[in-house]
């Protein structure tokens, strides 16, 4: 790997097998040290974390010293950094893999037909499903998308094509601010808004949830659409103007289609980001056990809230509630996966040819 990179060769180099061998050697040595010294916990197990940390440290010191002797200081530093970068990567990947595996392993238990064809109405203990939550998530996310995509794309068009002066600066600035709105604040906002509009009796409904999601989604859409519009070459616009095409038609017929694949990808990524939001929906859309197709009245269940309430409000037969929670989490992850896949396919199909 290292030697193929730009084909740079130094005068004196350590052989390629050096690094892996040194790593294995250090880990083996550390393990041996632990075993010999009898340094174990109460139940006699070796502390793998400690072995990994010490073994890696040993490897780094050894590599640095040897490399410094053979290849010189600069190469040795380079090896150190390579070690650190790879370690950072491994350190980050381990928990993420553990997480993904946990969700998959525990979620697969209840990922059956019933889970996708039933709600939780009249279900006590085992059985039941998340159809009501899936419908709710699909509806709310769709509404949020319908609100935030036009708003987001038009704002991006404004920023890239029209915006000059202080207003444009303010919009850019506040889009950034909006990106940082904590999701629970968006939920509180939607709740407060509908509390004032509809009164306490019907403040919590699907629409309020969708509004809170839209607040979170819009800045993400603006940001990605803005990036995509910016990379449309100016030559295209100028060519269009030169042909006498009005500016708005240029934007609609030339700029947008060129950026479409990127924008669509950005939108789908934005959907994937908000689809797992729990806190705002818990406050604004509430939760229920029954189907509700109407986002304008009554509480609406969504998948992330389903996961949370299944875990937080367990019945006597706790295991079946927890199983449902994990199955909901896995479903959510599968939906996100499909969305990401969709984004990729769209960007492949629609990206400008040639």
């Amino acid at each position, binding site marked *: 790997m290292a030697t193929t990179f730009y084909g740079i060769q130094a005068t004196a180099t350590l052989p390629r097998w050096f690094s892996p061998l040194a790593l294995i050697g250090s880990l083996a040595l550390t393990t041996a040290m632990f075993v010999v010294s009898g340094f174990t916990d109460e139940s006699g197990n070796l502390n793998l974390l400690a072995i990994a940390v010490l073994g890696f440290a040993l490897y780094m010191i050894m590599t640095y010293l040897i490399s410094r002797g053979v290849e010189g200081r600069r190469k040795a530093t380079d090896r150190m950094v390579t070690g650190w970068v790879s370690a950072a990567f491994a350190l980050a990947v381990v928990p993420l893999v553990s997480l993904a595996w946990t969700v998959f392993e525990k979620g697969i238990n209840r990922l059956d037909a*019933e889970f*996708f*064809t*039933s*709600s939780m*109405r*009249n*279900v*006590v*203990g085992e*059985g*039941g*499903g998340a*159809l*009501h939550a*899936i*419908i709710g998530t*699909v509806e709310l996310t769709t509404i949020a998308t319908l609100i935030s995509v036009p708003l987001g794309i038009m704002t991006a068009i404004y920023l890239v094509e029209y915006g000059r002066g202080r207003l444009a600066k303010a919009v850019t600035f506040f889009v950034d601010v909006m990106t940082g709105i904590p999701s629970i604040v968006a939920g509180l906002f939607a709740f407060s808004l509908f509390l004032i509009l509809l009164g*306490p*009796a019907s403040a919590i409904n699907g629409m309020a949830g969708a509004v809170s999601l839209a607040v979170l989604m819009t800045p993400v859409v603006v940001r990605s659409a803005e990036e995509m519009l910016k990379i449309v070459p100016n030559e295209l616009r100028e060519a269009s103007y030169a042909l006498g095409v009005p500016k708005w038609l240029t934007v609609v017929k030339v700029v947008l289609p060129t950026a479409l694949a990127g924008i669509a990808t950005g939108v789908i990524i934005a959907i994937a980001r908000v689809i797992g939001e729990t806190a705002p929906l818990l406050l604004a859309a*509430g939760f*229920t*056990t*029954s*189907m509700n197709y109407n986002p304008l009245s009554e*509480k609406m269940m969504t998948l992330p809230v389903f996961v949370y309430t299944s*875990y*937080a*409000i*367990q*019945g*006597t*037969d*706790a295991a079946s509630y927890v199983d449902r929670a994990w199955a909901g989490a896995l479903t959510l992850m599968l939906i996100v996966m499909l969305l990401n896949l969709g984004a990729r*396919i769209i960007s492949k199909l629609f990206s400008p040819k040639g």
Partner: protein
Amino acid sequence: MRKITQIAALAGVSALVLSGCAANEAAVEETTSAATETSTAVVLEGTLDGSGASSMASGQEAWVAGFQELNPGVTVNYNPTGSGTGRDQFEEGLTFFTGSDSSFKDEELATPHPNCSPADGDVFEFPIWISPIAVMFNLEGIDTLNMSPDTVAGIFTGKITKWNDAAIAADNAGVALPDLAITAVHRSDESGTTGNFTDWLSKAAPNTWVLNGENAGDLEAWPAEFGGEGGNATSGVIAAIAAGNGTIGYADASRVGDFGTVAIGVGSEFVAYSSEAAAKIVDVSPIKEGRPATTLAYDLDRDTTESGVYPVVLISYLQGCMDYADDAKAELVKAYASYMLSAEGQEWASQNAGNAPISEDLRQKALAIIDQVK
């Protein structure tokens, strides 16, 4: 092109699945005829909204399911918002019944309720949910321990910090107690479970349950001064107890699982939790006086010395109007409350939610009240 066809097919299938009604909800209609045996002659229809204690959410879940199966035309929504909010919502006229971990306060009885007729008319309340709160611990090799109320109070206020403390050892001769730190787990959210648990401590261990030199009283939210570890909702407490060695906590007894449990010192004996022992507390406690006859509010006798009574219980009331402005709602409340109070309803809930069925005597008294609702 093949890719696109595949995607289209996938989308079609998922649309088919998603557009359909939930299988279990459609099935309700079909089972109607089978259930007519027990359902009332009048076919009930409509939606009934209630809210309140989250402690009996699992019981309400079971009752709602059972009731809706008997009456497919009815939808009951019980929103576990917490007792205080539940009573507030009833007062604002948002709901038609309340589940509450505490009885109406006197000023609440005097406040008009918009859904009642007349608005300042009588309300009903009676215990519908009695559930033992188990003090459970995670200690390898030990299944049960005896503790006096003062010992429990000492642990949860942070005064007793080791499992081999003399106070614990004194009541547990012959048990090998480890030299291990105690981590006391409490609820980090407000809850009726905490309210009832602390109410018991304040009455049964008034000299140890002390905060800033005074009896700490009953608290819905755990004070930071006592320290200990917090868990969100019952499941959070259970998870915290399970995660550590040497943890102790309190939660609804239906969630004991494999944990060890504490037998509580009552008088000269130690009583382990059980539904029967928990239900007994209502029988030994006096009804609050000077209130309407339709309210059965108990002054729980937590420091009782009566044999076989388990005093650490959570008791929740069902509350509503004696006369509703909307007759249709009155019908629904009456039918739903009667179902909860019926022998089957009580049996069904204790099967599914693990609470203690209320005593036959209390059941009859409550039914007599519900019969007058109109």
